[in-house]
C-alpha cells in the first residue's frame, strides 16, 4: 500500500461547498500539511479521508485497515485511564497482548506519559491528552495517519514532543496528513496544500512555495503603525498586510508595485525583506496566482 490518494474530492453541506474538487496524493514517509484558516475545509477533508463522511463526488484510495485518525475534538474515554484507553483501542485494532504491551510501552515512553498510566484521561492536561490521543492512533502502526489540528490547546513542550513522535513514525514510512491553521507548523511539513473555501490555492514544499512567491515582501517602518494599517488595508494592490513590531509587513502586487510603493512611502521607510510562509499564504488568499507554477 502506498500512502493515500484522493481525486476530485467534493462535499457539500446544504449550500456550502466545504470541499471542492480536491486532489491529494501523499507518499509513504511523507508529512503533508493541509493549511488554511478556520472554515477552509480542512476538517471536512480529513473526515472524508477517514471515512466518517461520505463524499458527494470523488475517489479515495487508502487502506482503511491501516488508518490512524486523531480528531480535533476529544475522542478518548475520559473515565478510562491512559493504559485502559490504549488497551481498548489496541484490542479493536486486533493487536495481540504482546504487541499491545510492547507498543504501548514504547509510545508511553516517547510521550513521557508512562508514569501517569493509571490516570484517567479526563484528568489529563491538554497536552498530555493530545499525546495520549496520538499514541492511541499510532498503536497499530497505521500506514496512513490523519491528524486534525493536533497541537490545538497544547503547551510548547508537549507540542515539541508531539512533533518528535510524529517524525519518528514518518521516518519509518508512515504517510501523514496534518491539518493546521498555524504557519509555523505548516513550515515543518514536507509538503503543504493551502486550502481556502474548500479549494486548494497552491501546493508544494514550504520552502519552494516561499521561493516561488512572485510578489515582493516589504517592511514599513513608521511612527503611525495603526493609522497606516487602517489606510492601507483596503488598497487593492496590497495583497498581504500584517503588523510586525513597530511596523507593518506587506506583500505588494508585483505588476504595479512602483505606484504602490510610492503611496506607502508616505507613511515611512520601506525595505525589501525575505518572505516567509505566512506571507505566501496571505498573498495567495488575494491572488491565487501569487506562486509561479513550478
Amino acid at each position, binding site marked *: 500500500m502506498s500512502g493515500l490518494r484522493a481525486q476530485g474530492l467534493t462535499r457539500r453541506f446544504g449550500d456550502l461547498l466545504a470541499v471542492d474538487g480536491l486532489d491529494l496524493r501523499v507518499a509513504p514517509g511523507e508529512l503533508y500539511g493541509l493549511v488554511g484558516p478556520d472554515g477552509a475545509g480542512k476538517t471536512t477533508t480529513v473526515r472524508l479521508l*477517514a*471515512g*466518517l463522511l*461520505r463524499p458527494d463526488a470523488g475517489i479515495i484510495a487508502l487502506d*482503511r*485497515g491501516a*488508518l*490512524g*485518525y486523531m*480528531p480535533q*475534538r*476529544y*475522542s*478518548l*474515554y*475520559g*473515565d*478510562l485511564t491512559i493504559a*485502559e484507553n490504549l488497551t*481498548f*483501542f489496541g*484490542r*479493536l*485494532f*486486533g493487536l495481540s497482548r504482546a504487541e499491545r504491551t510492547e507498543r504501548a510501552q514504547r509510545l508511553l515512553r516517547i510521550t513521557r506519559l508512562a508514569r501517569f498510566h493509571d490516570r484517567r484521561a479526563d484528568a489529563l492536561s491538554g497536552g498530555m491528552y493530545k499525546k495520549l490521543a496520538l499514541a*492511541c492512533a499510532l498503536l497499530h502502526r497505521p500506514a496512513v495517519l490523519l491528524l486534525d489540528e493536533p497541537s490545538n490547546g497544547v503547551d510548547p513542550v508537549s507540542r515539541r514532543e508531539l512533533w518528535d513522535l510524529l517524525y519518528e513514525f514518518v521516518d519509518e514510512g508512515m504517510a501523514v496528513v496534518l491539518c493546521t491553521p498555524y504557519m509555523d507548523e505548516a513550515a515543518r511539513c514536507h509538503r503543504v496544500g493551502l486550502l481556502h473555501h474548500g479549494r486548494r490555492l497552491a501546493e508544494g514544499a514550504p520552502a519552494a512555495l516561499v521561493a516561488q512567491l512572485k510578489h515582493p515582501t516589504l517592511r514599513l517602518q513608521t511612527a503611525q503603525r495603526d493609522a497606516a494599517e487602517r489606510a492601507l488595508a483596503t488598497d487593492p494592490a496590497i495583497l498581504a498586510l500584517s503588523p510586525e513590531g513597530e511596523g507593518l509587513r506587506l506583500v505588494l502586487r508585483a505588476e504595479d508595485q512602483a505606484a504602490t510603493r510610492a503611496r506607502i512611502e508616505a507613511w515611512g521607510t520601506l525595505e525589501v525583506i525575505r518572505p516567509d510562509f505566512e506571507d505566501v499564504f496571505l498573498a495567495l488568499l488575494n491572488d491565487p496566482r501569487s506562486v509561479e507554477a513550478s
Partner: protein
Amino acid sequence: MTTEILAVALKEIRQTRRDPRTLAVLVVAPLMQLILLGFAVNLDVTHVPVVLADADQTAESRAFAEALLAGETFEAVAALPDPEAAAAEVIAGRAAIALIIPPGFAAALRAGRAVDVQALADGSDAQRAVVAQNTLTAFAARWSLAYSAATGQAPRFTQAPVEIRPRVLYNPTLNSRVFFVPGVAATLLLVVTLVVTAMGLAREKEDGTLEQILVTPISSEALMLGKVLPYGLIGLFDLALAVTLGAAIFGVPLRGALPIVGLGGALYMLTTLGLGLFVASAARTQQQAFMGAFFLILPMTLLSGFMSPISNMPAWLQPLTLLDPMRHMVEILRGVLLKGASLADLAPQLLWLAGMGLTVFTAAAVALRKRLA
C-alpha cells in the same frame, strides 16, 4: 469478531463499574420500583370506606351493619344519623359508599316484608364502585337468608334454579398483584435496557469516541453486540431478581420452567436493547436519546396488555399489539409463572420476539453505519 465484541463489552463493564449512578439505575432502581409498583399497582377492592346512616337504630339494623363491616371489603369511616350528611361524606370524598338503613328496617323484617337499604356509591372510581355494589348485593341476599333461617320464617330468598359456580384458575383468590408483578417486571426490563443503551451510545456520539471507534476495523454489528452484551446480562440478572422477589414478597407462583422465562427475557431484551441502539443512532445528544426512549416506553407499556386486557382494545388496535415486544414478554411471564405454560405453548410469543429482535438489531446496525459513513 469475538475479540472486538469482548473488547467493547469489557470497556462498557469497566465504565459502568466506575459510574455508581449507572449501576444504581441498572440494579437498585428496578428492584425498588418492582417492590413499590408491586404494592401500588393493585386492583383488589378492599377496605372500601363506608359511611353509615342507620335511621332505624335497632338490634337488627346494627346486626346488619356489623355483619357487613366484619369482612375485608368494607370499613366504616363514620356513622351519622342523617342520610343527607352521609351522602355529603361521599361527595366530599371521605367515603366511597353511603349505606342508608331506613326507619322501620327491623319492623319490616319482623313482619316478613321486603325493605330497601340504600347504598350511594362514588362512581368516579368505577372499578371500586362495581365491586362494592356486587359485594353489597350478594351480602344482602346472604344476610336475608341467614335472618330468615334464624327467625324461622319462610325464606323469602330461595336458591335460584340455575347457579353459576365460577372457579378461577391459576389465580384462585383473584389476587391482582400476582397478575401485575410479571407485567411490572417486563416494564422495568424495558425501561432499564432501552434507556441505558440509548444513552450509552448517544454518549459515545457526544464525546466523539464513536468516531474514534469507527476508524478502527470493527464492524457496526460487533460494536453493537459488545455494547449491549453487559446490559443484557444485567437485565437477565434483574429479571431473575424480579421473579425471586415477586415470589418472596407478593406470592407470585412459579408453576413453569424458569429457563423459558430466561429464554424469553433474552429474546425480549434483544428487541429492547436493539430499540435503544436504534433510538441512539437517530439521536445526536443524550437528551434526544432519552426523549426518544421515553416516547417508546409509554405506548409499549399501554399496548402490552399489562394494565388493561388486549381483548378490551378496539379491534383495529389489537393486531398492532403483536408488534409490541412487551406484550409477548408479559404473556411469557404470566404463562410460565402463573399457568405453568410449556415451551410449545409459548412458541408463538418466543418466535415473535426472536423475529422482532433480529429485525430491530439489524436495522439499528444499518442505521448506525448509514449515519456515519
